[in-house]
């Protein structure tokens, strides 16, 4: 159904397996195209930033990868399977939606028990340890917790599934800087604990946050992929493009992730929807 390696990827030459591999993945809602021919790969063990303006298709892409939304075109392979409504597939995916969905009248402990009944692998002690460490009351209704605490509860519950792919949709958008930092610290620790077995795709507007935790990038604008690949590789390439020339001494300006992202955000308009995909997996 889906070619093992989309044409043109360097990944075909590398032994590293892909956690996410999409080929011309598209989603149309009646007349609106939410995602257009999206071809990206995320190697296993990476922390991938999914950035782009509002309405760029970030949520659509994440929900398709999670098996919640069906594509209208193209194919996706996630952890060597097709995203679908299947218990074995769903068990591998940790998906945290934008609104931090929890049962507001239930306590964290209730959620832990619900998770235990709905997942084959369930690390209840991980959630309890984590939340106790953060001094988040386990027995209190989550509706009465602060936004940052709720996000931590939701992330801990998502991690308790012991997923191999973590899909996080703007999890820090509503959080204050401290809560954001704590959230990302938890995420970083989880990736470190995973020992390369956990892949993360994380969407956000806050590029400065992403710079610290992510090593891979997918940039969407106007429902299309504008840029994707290893962040260091992308920065080096763009430095080369922007750097030399008139400067004889070879003085290269240091391009930040933020500068690069901002430059491409408007690329959709400027290039008339030209497909600017750069791929550079591995490092």
């Amino acid at each position, binding site marked *: 159904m889906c070619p093992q390696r989309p044409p043109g990827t360097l990944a075909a030459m590398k032994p590293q397996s892909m956690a996410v591999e999409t080929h011309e993945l598209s989603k149309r809602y009646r007349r609106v195209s939410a995602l257009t021919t999206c071809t990206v790969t995320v190697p296993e063990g990476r922390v991938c930033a999914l950035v782009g303006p509002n309405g760029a298709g970030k949520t659509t892409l994440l*929900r398709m990868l*999670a098996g*919640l*939304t*069906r594509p209208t075109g193209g194919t996706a392979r996630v952890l060597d399977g097709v995203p679908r*409504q*299947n*218990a*074995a597939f*769903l*068990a591998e*995916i*940790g*998906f*945290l*939606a934008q*609104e931090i*969905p*929890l*049962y*507001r009248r*239930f306590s964290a402990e*209730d*959620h832990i*028990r*619900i*998770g235990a*009944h*709905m*997942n*084959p692998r369930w690390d209840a002690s991980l959630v309890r340890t984590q939340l106790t460490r953060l001094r988040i009351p386990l027995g209190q209704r989550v509706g009465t917790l602060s936004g940052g605490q709720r996000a931590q509860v*939701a992330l801990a519950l*998502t991690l308790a*599934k012991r997923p191999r792919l973590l899909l996080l949709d703007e999890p820090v958008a509503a959080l204050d800087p401290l809560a954001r930092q704590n959230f990302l610290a938890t995420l970083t620790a989880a990736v470190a604990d995973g020992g390369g077995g956990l892949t993360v795709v994380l969407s956000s507007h806050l590029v400065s946050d992403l710079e610290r935790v992510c090593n891979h990038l997918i940039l969407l604008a106007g429902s299309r992929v504008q840029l994707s690949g290893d962040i260091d590789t992308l920065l080096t390439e763009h430095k080369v493009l922007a750097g030399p020339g008139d400067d004889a001494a070879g003085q290269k300006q240091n391009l930040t992730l933020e500068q690069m992202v901002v430059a491409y955000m408007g690329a959709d308009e400027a290039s008339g929807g030209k497909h600017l995909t750069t791929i550079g997996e591995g490092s």
Partner: protein
Amino acid sequence: MTWLVWRQYRAQGAIALALLAAFAAVILADGFQLAAHWHSILTTCSGNNACLQQQEPLVNGVVSDLPDISLIVPTVLGILWGAPLVAHELESRTTDFAWAQSVTRTRWLAVKIGWLLLAAAAYGGVIAALTTWWSGPINALSASAFVPGQFDTQGIVPVGYAVFAMALGIAAGTVARRTLPAIAVALGGFIALRLVVSTVLRPHYMAAVTTYYKVTGSFTPPGQAWVLGQGAVSRSGVVVAQGWGDLYPALPASCQRLLPTSPTGKSGSESAVFSCMQAHGWRGFATYQPAGRYWPFQGIETGIYLLLAAALIAVAFAIIRRRDA
């Protein structure tokens, strides 16, 4: 999955059980009193039908209306539990939590719907059983179990109503994705269907039996039959239901003259009118569903509601499976 359903509904379930216990307590207390009264009547009359017919109705006041509570139970179940089942989870986005676990949407819906339909059937069934038991003496004295109103609260039909109302609420919530419109549809749809089925469809589940008899005599179908219509019919086929006002213009002039000005007062003149009518070829008639059809009718009506419930549940599944989350 079952634990999630238990956690979500245990508080409401406890309230529902408490209400059921209160209903049962009143029904049982009153029912034993009623049964005792009925036994004393039986002893007094010792098989004398005329004596039984002179007895006053067995219940008065508030308690006589108590079984009517069971008429609104299905609607309440459909509104409070059925409509929010999917709609409220979509509204509060908790589906994004539930569907992110290692459980497919289909299974999530199947377990939730399964338990709630079971709860509705059990709840409707217990109330129906209590009401049926309570109504025993009244059924025996008034032979009224088949009559609309009594028929709707006894036997197995309340189970069908409860399951249907729940299914309607669930399906409406799944289609509308919002609780409030789903409640409106569940309420309106249930009442409308109940009215249509009980007044339009039910009399025709089987072809009614019509018995003709001498207009001077009288006729009561045996047992707890459901009389759909009774009156007089002329030789040329003019049908007049009971009531002097309707009868007068239909009568031949010779009989009209015999009609008493105040019909209730002079029964002697009434029999003269009947004799006159018989001489002109009028017959009495009664159209009814015989008592033996009570359970077949209960079965047919329950079947209709269960089939409709199954169709609604199928719609809910089709939508949840196909629609993007």
